[in-house]
């Protein structure tokens, strides 16, 4: 086999460069096609990750635990006790990178000018910081300094609509544990920046303050958690459900269906794009190789007349294709890597305004080369390209020496 390769490799390589213009055009077709596949995959993946992170790192986390019925009716009537026993063991284990306990209830906030609906979230700021970016997005004033903090942190847009500001007071109304309306004044201690929908919806206070406000003791309504990168979220959730059958435990895929749909759609789009580009490339490659075979038909006749077996002729032409596509694939990978490295600080989608926000993406995409994806898509293109050229290669190998050479 090695002897055969030593014979065929130089022959195939030199044959490639007999018509440099055609070879270069084919290499460009393959490389630009692969570049578009790889670059699209990187951008769409960055968009998908951005979309997921924007959702997950604001409030959702990768999974949430509630009392059964809370997601349909988010009031203190559907509260739960603090995690204990096996569930607490799992939350404290290495399977969970961080978790936070919240009291999250539908409420009404009132300023001296306006009354608006919102969701009041009582939380432990130290824990919240480990899975949410909101504590670091305070643009005016400060974030909560502990679970007993009695201040309230509002979204900037909610504050604007309420015509209130840091240092002023607002009144929050919500149902208490007996179903009666509880009412309390909170001092606005900070304003945070986030997508407008989040700014309008969520206001934060200390967990203990919220528990006292609603009179539910130490109960909570929500636990949000994130897992280490290596951890399979489905496995963690299965273990949690087994340890705590009375609770409603869901992954982000259920809690944030839009983000999940976006990432699924992107994966399918990449595959669809791969097939479209491959079909176009295949037409170009097969056409080129067929032309090359027809132009050299006398030569294939000569090779067979000299004693080269038909299957070696097939191998020789296939090797030419493999090299040709291989060069194109190599160039395509290099172009893609350079394209990604051209944006070391990410791609600013600010020009899209709220458009990007509406589909859940952040303002900046961070494209990253995924060696696994690059290898997979490149291998698919190379393999399918070589398979497509088996047709012209087969024609070359089935040439009759007498007919090919015209005469003896």
């Amino acid at each position, binding site marked *: 086999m090695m002897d055969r390769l030593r014979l065929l490799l130089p022959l195939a390589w030199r044959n490639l460069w007999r018509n440099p213009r055609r070879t270069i055009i084919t290499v460009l077709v393959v490389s630009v096609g692969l570049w578009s596949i790889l670059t699209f995959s990187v951008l769409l993946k960055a968009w998908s990750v951005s979309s997921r992170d924007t959702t997950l790192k604001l409030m959702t986390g990768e999974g949430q635990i509630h009392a059964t019925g809370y997601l349909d009716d988010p009031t203190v009537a559907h509260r739960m006790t603090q995690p204990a026993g096996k569930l607490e063991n799992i939350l404290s284990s290495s399977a969970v990178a961080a978790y936070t306990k919240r009291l999250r209830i539908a409420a009404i906030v009132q300023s001296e000018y306006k009354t608006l609906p919102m969701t009041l979230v009582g939380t432990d700021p130290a824990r919240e910081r480990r899975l949410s970016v909101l504590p670091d997005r305070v643009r005016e004033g400060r974030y909560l300094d502990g679970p007993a903090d009695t201040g309230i942190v509002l979204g900037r847009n909610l504050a604007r609509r309420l015509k209130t500001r840091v240092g002023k007071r607002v009144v929050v109304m919500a149902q208490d544990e007996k179903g009666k309306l509880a009412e309390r004044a909170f001092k606005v201690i900070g304003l945070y920046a986030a997508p407008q929908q989040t700014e309008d919806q969520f206001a934060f206070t200390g967990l203990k303050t919220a528990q006292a406000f609603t009179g539910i003791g130490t109960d909570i309504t929500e636990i949000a958690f994130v897992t280490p990168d290596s951890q399979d979220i489905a496995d963690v959730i299965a273990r949690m459900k087994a340890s705590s059958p009375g609770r409603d435990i869901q992954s982000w895929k259920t809690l944030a269906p839009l983000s999940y749909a976006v990432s699924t759609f992107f994966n399918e789009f990449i595959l669809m794009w791969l097939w479209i580009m491959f079909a176009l490339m295949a037409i170009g490659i097969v056409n080129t190789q067929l032309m090359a075979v027809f132009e050299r038909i006398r030569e294939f006749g000569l090779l067979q007349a000299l004693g080269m077996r038909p299957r070696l002729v097939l191998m020789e032409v296939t090797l030419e294709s493999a090299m040709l596509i291989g060069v194109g694939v190599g160039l395509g990978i290099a172009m893609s890597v350079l394209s990604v490295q051209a944006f070391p600080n990410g791609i600013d989608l600010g020009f899209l305004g709220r458009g990007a926000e509406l589909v859940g993406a952040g303002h900046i995409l961070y494209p990253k080369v995924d060696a696994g994806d690059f290898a997979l898509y490149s291998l698919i293109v190379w393999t399918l390209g070589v398979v497509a050229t088996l047709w012209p290669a087969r024609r070359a190998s089935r040439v009759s020496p*007498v007919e090919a050479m015209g005469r003896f």
Partner: protein
Amino acid sequence: MTAIVECKGITKHYRQGSIDVPALRGVDLAIEKGDFASLAGPSGSGKTTLLNIVGGLDRPTEGTISIDGQDLTALDNEELADLRLRKIGFVFQAYNLIPVLSAVENVEFTQQLMNVPAKERRERAKEMLHQVGLDGMENRRPSRLSGGQQQRVAVARALASRPSIVLADEPTANLDTKTAEDLITLMSDLNERYGVTFLMATHDDRVISRTRRHIVIADGRVASDELRPAEMAV
């Protein structure tokens, strides 16, 4: 004498639309070891068809053909390729060489197919190029060789695999007089010095006059087959 090629009752018919065209009508022919033979005849007489069949490039409609006792009609395409590689050297009228290989690589090519070790085949190829007077041109590609030089490389390649017989089709057709004379002399020398068997299809009187055996094909049959003493071959 030992017969290298034996043709018995060879017929070959081609279809042209619905018409059956006979090219060979029962050829019996034996080529002996050491023959330096020409195969002549008018265009359409069947000499090319016969050479194709002797070379294992085409199959007869009827009859048997054997080379060194091996029946060609029983072989499939892969086996025929192997037989051509090991038993037959070819010198074609044109388009003789592989354009992307140098002269020495062209000569090595058939040996490489036969898995001859690299050092041995390179030495043999250089020796063959020396024999055909192409010292110093080993690394030239065909595009940098004249027509005569290309034919010499083809002869060197045909001999390098040490075949039982060399088949040449109009080897001088594209060459000028001087180059053609040189090539004939070269082949004649190789025949006399090393006993290489040659069968050449040709119209060229210069070739015919130098061969010791002269076979004429007419209407698909052997019309004459005459042996001439060496001294009569000019």
